[in-house]
């Protein structure tokens, strides 16, 4: 068992445990912390896949900005223990079997497919500086227009959030 395998299984374990904790936690703040755990584990897996810049962005934007936003809203609304209601039987009797079915179907077909058998071999893309430079050139040349479009999307989202959260006088 080589080092990448051990690292993969350690961080995959953390990611899956975090996702399960998100489901079983009763308080939203515990779910948020579990989700941060998943995101940090995924950033480590991105490092293992040789995507350094994506790992940094994952930590800065997802674990940093988006989850802080979530925690702020949880504290603003003083969200306590989730109340248990048994109004919806559909979730209990259809949701769980469907979720488990989806999980098994996805893993089964991925494990069987041809692309699943291919091995990631080490190459020049593993080099951090080369990878990040090539990524920036791709982002600002080939994908320049979508990149600018996302900035407009962010601007519209900020305006929308302001309009929605504004108190009526």
């Amino acid at each position, binding site marked *: 068992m080589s080092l990448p395998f051990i690292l993969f299984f350690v961080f995959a374990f953390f990611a*899956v445990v975090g996702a399960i904790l998100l489901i079983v936690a009763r308080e939203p703040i515990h779910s*948020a912390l579990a989700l941060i755990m998943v995101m940090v584990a995924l950033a480590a897996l991105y490092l293992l896949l040789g995507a350094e810049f994506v790992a940094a962005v994952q930590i800065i934007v997802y674990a940093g900005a988006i989850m802080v936003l979530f925690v702020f809203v949880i504290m603003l609304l003083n*969200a306590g223990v989730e109340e248990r209601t048994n109004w919806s039987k559909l979730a209990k009797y259809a949701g769980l079997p469907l979720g488990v079915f989806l*999980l098994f179907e996805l893993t089964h077909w991925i494990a069987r497919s041809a692309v699943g058998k291919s091995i990631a071999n080490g190459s020049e893309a593993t080099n951090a500086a080369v990878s990040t430079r090539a990524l920036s050139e791709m982002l600002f040349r080939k994908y320049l227009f979508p990149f600018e479009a996302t900035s407009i999307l962010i601007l519209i989202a900020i305006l929308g959030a302001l309009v929605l959260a504004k108190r009526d006088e």
Partner: protein
Amino acid sequence: MSAVPISYYLVLSAILFGLGVVAFVFKHNIITIYMAIELMLNAVNLAFVAFARAHNQLDGLVFVFFVIVVAAAESAVGLAIILTIAQNRQSLNVERVNQLKF
């Protein structure tokens, strides 16, 4: 360096996506449901990065950035909507939000 087969990453991505679907269906709190959506987006990002690695092309990584940007925009607007709902209904339970007009 990375000797782990891509299929391992894809299976992990599928497991995380499935857990996200289960959380989405099971949770009653509207904020936690939002977090389940974020978990599913993260699972898809992992698949993007794994495929980018398998095919040795960087396009997948660029799409990860777009997914992250859309997730940020979505969470900004969505949390504003959650704030409005919480102020109007005094509850975060989705089962109490069963009318469009209150």
